[in-house]
């Protein structure tokens, strides 16, 4: 087992031009969406929002490296990636506003969505818990001899959790086809990364588990894509898991960086950009207005899905609620 460090910038990444354009368009959408939701939250129209501003390169680089059959175990900031993978914008916004259109029936905080369409598992708020799920999922695929890889996304704060330890440990022992993508943005709320570990970096934690570690520039779409793609291939070849640390920074704008790349290659122009921005704006205007006008889920729905069928005590509780004035 050797920990390897990939070069920090790889402009010759094997991403087809059209795909880079598509990714860029989605990154712009994701950025605009985040800005709108941050704004709505400040206005008090949204309880909370987990923004991905400045972290788009890591999110999209990781997502873009997956094959259709692969799955994502996310933790709240990856909505843009889910849209790219086919989650309808309307579904996501219904989730954000907890309305009746939400696949999750308005039961969870904004960000912790699930989408079978996008092969995104169900996220939750407790930090780290999805890491072992991703491992078990990938391990199950391996046991069934299916060619499926799971991408496990988390922040550097999550590396302190028991689930990180256990997830990487099980992945190492059982050679599960999973890719751990640690997004190191330097902070867990107010706690700096140096308070999470005395190790000099996060990627080398893989050593403790026999899992190779890789460090990449998390602001570089191509670098992240290359590292995740290599890890996906490695996993698919039956060689097991990889831990990737993608360090993001506020110094450059990861979306602008892709734009520069496209413009330099004459694949995109200022005009394209203005047109796309206005299309996105229009799309969001409509979608946001629609989502905000949707009713909340009916109160009786509260008792569904606790179990597959409603047991006697929940029947009774539903009746109790129905008797109550609204």
């Amino acid at each position, binding site marked *: 087992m050797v920990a390897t460090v990939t070069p920090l910038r790889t402009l010759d990444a094997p991403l087809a031009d059209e795909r880079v354009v598509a990714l860029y368009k989605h990154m712009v959408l994701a950025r605009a969406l985040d800005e709108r939701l941050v704004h709505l939250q400040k206005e008090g129209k949204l309880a909370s929002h987990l923004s991905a501003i400045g972290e788009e390169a890591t999110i999209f680089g990781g997502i873009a490296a997956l094959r259709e059959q692969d799955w994502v175990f996310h933790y709240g900031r990856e909505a843009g990636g889910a849209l790219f993978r086919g989650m309808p914008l309307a579904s996501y916004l219904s989730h954000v506003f907890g309305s009746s259109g939400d696949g999750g029936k308005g039961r969870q905080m904004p960000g912790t969505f699930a989408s079978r369409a996008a092969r995104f598992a169900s996220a939750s708020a407790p930090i780290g818990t999805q890491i072992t799920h991703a491992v078990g999922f990938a391990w199950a695929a391996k046991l069934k001899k299916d060619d499926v890889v799971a991408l496990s996304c988390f922040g550097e704060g999550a590396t302190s959790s028991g689930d990180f330890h256990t997830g990487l440990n099980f992945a190492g022992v059982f050679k599960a086809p999973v890719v751990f993508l640690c997004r190191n943005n330097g902070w867990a709320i107010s706690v700096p990364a140096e308070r999470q570990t005395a190790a000099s970096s996060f990627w080398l934690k893989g050593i403790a588990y026999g899992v190779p570690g890789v460090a990449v520039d998390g602001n570089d779409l191509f670098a992240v894509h290359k590292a995740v793609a290599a890890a996906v291939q490695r996993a698919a070849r039956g060689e097991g898991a990889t831990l990737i640390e993608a360090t993001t920074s506020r110094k450059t704008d990861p979306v602008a960086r892709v734009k520069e790349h496209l413009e330099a290659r004459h694949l995109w122009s200022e005009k394209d950009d203005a047109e796309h921005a206005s299309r996105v704006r229009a799309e969001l205007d409509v979608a946001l207005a629609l989502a905000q006008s949707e009713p909340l889920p009916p109160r009786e729905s509260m008792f569904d*899905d606790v179990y597959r069928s409603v047991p006697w005590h929940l029947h009774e509780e539903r009746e109790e609620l129905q008797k109550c004035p609204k």
Partner: protein
Amino acid sequence: MPEMNMVGAINDALRHEMRKDPRVLVMGEDVGKVGGVFRVTQGLFEEFGEDRVIDTPLSEGGIIGTAIGMALYGLVPVPEIQFADFIYPAFDQIVSELAKMRYRSGGEYASKIVIRSPVGGGIRGGHYHSQSPEALFIHTAGLKVVCPSNPYDAKGLLLASIRDPDPVLFFEPKRVYRAAKGDVPEGDYTVELGKAAVTRPGKHVTVIAWGAMLYEALAAADEAAKQGVECEVLDLRTLWPVDIDAIVASVKKTGRVVVVHEAPKTCGFGAELVALINEKAFVHLEAPPIRVAGFDTPFPYSLEMEYLPLAHRILPAVLDTARF
């Protein structure tokens, strides 16, 4: 029909279902070659191999966390927690993830696993090899909780648990793992979840018990009968969702209730039963329902037979209730 003990019946159920359903697998500490510290999984490794009978690293959180992931993929893991006392490192995964998966995803995902774990005292295990944590999981919406008292039920309930669409905690009363014997049909059958059994009919006092304490309740009932008090002993079998109809029917008949359990009394499942009986059958009560339970201390080693709610502690409660 062969006679089996609990260990054999549970083993038989696992083997049966693993033969029938390729999605079912067993995982945990020492469940493999050695067949589990209580030998419940003995022989399964040899028959099904290391991909379906999996020795894991020493991490209960990892066992349950990865089992949840496996279930999301479509397998049906039956993880073993070596002693229920060691379930706490997995507590977050059970209450935050397993229990809420279907609900929080609006039914889009579900994580169906059956967690098997030995519970209860009387084997000289002290604090950490004796606990009965059922109340913690009954309090957690989204879980089902089962605890058989005999080999027939053990097999039938375990098969029903594995086939049930919801996550189940399957608690095995280790004190009677080998002591409880009985005829167990070969092949397929289930005991429906959510149905109690009237183990001994009677008209004066309803005694509600499960697991190893059922035998103590029956012993106390025998003694009480000698003093003219006829107990109706209910074996709950499924703790949650509980068979409320069976309880209410019995209480309507007797008007008097004693609940027995090993877990500490305070905030134990006995409290819930008393509260439910109040809500459903108050006007039929002729005496306050009382609880004979583990004391509100950690489970002691040397004094375990004083700690447990054995027949000698149940009997006075039954007589007091009958004469209230």
